[in-house]
C-alpha cells in the first residue's frame, strides 16, 4: 500500500473538477445509491474520469460504487456525474426504497399466511 504522507497520483482533485466544489446538477441529483447508467460510449479526448464513468456505468452502478472504483471522493464523483448528466450522456435512477418498503407485504400478513399454510 502507499506510505503515509505520500501521494501516488499527480492529479489533484481540483484539476479533475476544474476547480468546482459543487455539482452543476445540484446536490439532490445524486445521492449515494443513485443508480447511474451511461447513455453513450466514451469518446476519444474525453476526460479520463468521464470515460471511466461511462465505461463502468454500462451496467447500472451506484454512485458510491463509482466512487470506489474511481478512487475519488463521492462529492467529486457527483460533480463529474453532473457534467455528464448535463451533456445527456448518463441517466440517473433513484432507487425508490421507501415506496418499495411500503409496497412489500406486511410481516404480520406473511406470518398469518405461513401459519395458514402450515395449518392446511
Amino acid at each position, binding site marked *: 500500500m502507499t506510505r503515509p504522507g505520500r501521494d501516488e497520483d499527480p492529479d*489533484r482533485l481540483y*484539476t479533475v473538477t476544474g476547480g468546482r466544489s459543487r455539482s452543476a446538477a445540484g446536490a439532490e441529483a445524486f445521492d449515494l445509491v443513485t443508480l447511474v447508467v451511461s447513455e453513450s460510449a466514451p469518446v476519444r479526448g474525453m476526460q479520463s474520469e468521464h470515460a471511466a464513468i461511462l*465505461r463502468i456505468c*454500462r451496467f447500472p452502478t451506484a454512485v458510491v*460504487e463509482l466512487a470506489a472504483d474511481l478512487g475519488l*471522493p*463521492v462529492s467529486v464523483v457527483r460533480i463529474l456525474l453532473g457534467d455528464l448528466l448535463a451533456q445527456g450522456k448518463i441517466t440517473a435512477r433513484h432507487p425508490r*426504497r421507501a415506496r418499495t418498503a411500503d409496497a412489500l407485504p406486511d410481516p404480520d400478513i406473511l406470518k398469518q399466511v405461513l401459519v395458514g399454510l402450515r395449518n392446511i
Partner: protein
Amino acid sequence: MTSPEIPPPPASGADGTAAGRSGPAAGGDPTVPAGRGAAKGTALALLISIVVAGAACLITVQTCADSARTAVAWGTGAAGAVLCAAVAVAVHARLTSRSLRSQVAAAQARAAERDAADARFADTTVPGVVERLRRGGSAETALAEAPPVVSEAQRRVLTALAHEVHRGETLRAAAMSACANAAGRVQALATSMAADLREMEHRHADEDVLGDLLHLDHRNAQTGRIADSLAVLTGARSGRRWAKPIVMESVLRGAMGRISGYQRVRLHSTSEAAVAGHAAEGVMHALAELMDNAANFSPPTSEVHVYVEEVAAGIVITVEDGGLVMGDVALRRAEQAVSGEHGDLTTLSGTRLGLAVVGRLARKHGLQVSFRPSAHGGTGVLLRVPHELVTEPRHEERTEVPAPAAAVPPAPRAERSAARPTARRQDNTAAVHSRQPERAGPDVQRSPGHDRREDTARTAPAPPPQEFGESGLPKRRRGQTLAAVARASATSSRLPEPAPGAEQADQRDPTAAGEAAGGPTAARSTPRPSGARFGDFRRAVQGAGTEDTGRRSRPSDSSPARSSSLSEDDTE
C-alpha cells in the same frame, strides 16, 4: 700613418685601436657605468694621439729648415693640440653612445622579460588559482600549487585575489546549499501536505468544506512549484519521483494544477502515451512553468491552449496563449534561457525564474523547447519530450472503447429495463448470503448451520475473481464485497438466466422477495452482478430497511433461518 703631412691617419689609427679596446669592455660588461669606460677610453685615445702628434711634431720640426723652425713648431704644436682634442672628443662621443645603446638594449630585454612574466601571470597563474579555488580548494592550497611568481607585487596580488575568490566561493556555496536545503524542506512539506489534503478531501463530503480544501490544495501546489523551482535552480534533487509511468493526461493536469490561472488552461489531448516515472516530474514542472508564463503574459480573460501531438521523435506539447507576440530580442533571450547552456545562475534576472528553470530541466531530461508565433495571436511554446522518455501506460484500461461498444450497442437500454427488479432480488439474496456467517454465530444450533457456514466460508475467502475484464483476464473490482465475490463465483459456474425471465420479474416486483426466498439457486444464477453489487451497497448504506428484507427472505433459505421460523412457531 708615417706620412708627416697628414695628421689624421695616426689619430684615426689611434682612435681605431682605442675604440677596438674600449668597445669590448663597454659591450662585455654592461654593469660598468658608461661614464667610466668612456673616460678611460677617451684618456687612452688622448694619450696615443698626443704621443703620435708629438712625435709627428718633433719629426716635422727636426726636418724643416732652421729659419722656419719656430713657426713650424708653433704651427704643428697647435695643429697637434687641436687634433688631439678632436680625437678625444670623437672617441668620447663614440664610446658614450655605444655604452648607452647597450644599456638601452639591456633595459629593453629586461622589460620584455617582465612583460612575458606578466602575461604568464595573467594568463596562466591567476586562472589556475581561481580554477583551483572554484573546485573547492582552500586559498593556501591554491597558492601553493600555483607556479612561482617573479615579483613581490605579483605575489601580493595573487594572495589577495586567492583569499577574495575563496571567500566569494564559500559564500556562494553556503548560500546555494542553504537555499537547496530550505527548498527541499518546503518540497517535503508541500508533498506531505498534498497527501494530507487528498485524504481530507476524501473524508469530507460537505461541498463547502470540499471547496475550501480544493482551494488550499491549489495554493499548496503552487507553493510546491516554487520550492521545486528553487530546488532546480540550486541544483538540488528534484522533488518527487513517480514509481510508475504517468499518462499524458495526468502529466498535463499535474502541470496545470500548479499554476494560479489553471482554470484558464484548456487541454486538448487524446494521447494515451505516458512519460517515464523518473522524468515525469521534470516534464510536469517544465510544462507548469511554460503554462504559467503563457497565463501571465496573456490577458486574464483569454485561455491558454495545450495541445499534444505524438511524433516519431517523441511527444510534442504545445502551449499557446493569446497574449503578446514576443519581440526579436525577447525571443532570443528566451531561447537562450531555455537552451540550458548556462550551468550557473549568472543569467538569472531575479524576477523571472521560469525560463531558467525550464532550461535546467530541459538540459537534465533532454527536452527541447522552442518558440514560435501562436495561431491564437500570442506566443506558442513547443516542448518536445524525447522518445526515450515516452512509454506505454501501465494501465488496465487500455482496451476500453472498442470492445464493448462493438459488442453490445443497444444493450444498456435493454439491460436497464431488467436491471432494477433483479437488482432488488439480488439485494435480498445478497443480504442472505452475506449475513450467513455472522448470523450463524449467536442464534443457531451448531450442527445444521455448520456445513452451510463452512460452505460460505470456503467460497468466500478465496474466490476466483470471476468478473472478466475487457482484456479477457479475470479482474476483481475495488468496490466488490465479500458476498458479491462469493456470488459471482457461484454465478459463473452456472448458465446465465435468460433475459425474458428477468423481464418477467419486472412485473412481479413485490413477489421478488418471495421468489428469492423460494430458491437461492435461482436467484444466484441471475447474470446481474452490478445489480447485486448495488444491493450490497444499499444494504451497507441503509441499515434498517434492507435488513428487514433480508430477515424476511431468510426463513426458508437456510438453516439459521429455521431457528427463527421455529421461534415464530413457538410464539404462535
